[in-house]
């Protein structure tokens, strides 16, 4: 399952926002994974959505106007 190359994580203001975004991506058939917010970003809170970097633009298009997110961050490796 580990993909070579980078991922992007989408950070949300709450767990509920992350869940809503996950539902949207699931319905759209966009491959994604709900993971804990990586330690180097913040170990203090929450979950985020990880997608493969090439899918980033599609994810943005799917989520825009339907759910708000707080930021994105590149993620190396798994």
């Amino acid at each position: 399952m580990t993909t070579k190359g980078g991922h992007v994580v989408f950070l949300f203001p709450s767990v509920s926002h992350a869940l809503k975004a996950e539902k949207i991506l699931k319905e759209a058939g966009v491959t994604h994974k709900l993971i804990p917010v990586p330690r180097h970003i913040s170990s203090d809170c929450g979950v985020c959505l990880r997608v493969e970097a090439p899918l980033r633009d599609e994810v943005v298009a799917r989520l825009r106007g339907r759910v708000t997110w707080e930021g994105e961050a590149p993620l190396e490796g798994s």
Partner: protein
Amino acid sequence: MEETIDARGLACPGPVVLAKKALEGSARVKVLVDNETAVENLRRLALRNACGFAVEGGEGGCWEIVITREGPLAEAPAEASPETRGTKAPRAAGPTVIVFAHDRMGGGDDTLGDILLRAFVHTLLEVKPRPDVVVCYNGGVRLAVEGAQTAADLRALAEGGTEILVCGTCLNYYGLTEKLAVGRVSNMYEIAETLTAAGRIVRP
């Protein structure tokens, strides 16, 4: 050089992310926040990076925080990494066994429990040393079947040498025998032996 950040209205991890970014360029960063969680998260950020921390205010729900950095930002958090935690913890005699008895983590809300358990399984890949054995029974067998979002992580664990035992009786009961995606079908003899011989049992 001082930088001021207005992080009011931002929820976690917003204030920490902004503060960290600002600290990379400035030795002194002032952050305005409007919730106590943010204050505590920033306090930990400062602590992890050996930075000075001062907080003022609180009246009217607004705090002014000043974080000062002496040297460069720490590459890694000063808190124990999984590697050091793993070596400092006393090694139990016998294998470490993780038991999944449910397809949820904790009790309270099933939706949340589902998220937490998926996050837990994902994080297991980062924990060193990896568990020796994972045992799935009752609702826990749902983690190891086709379509389960945890299946890929369990497969990665298995590829790394962790043995995954899945209760055959349970697969049969739930009608999932044909759907097993990862791990080996096991029985109560092996499960009972594994649990009683374990040096450490972790049950999320």
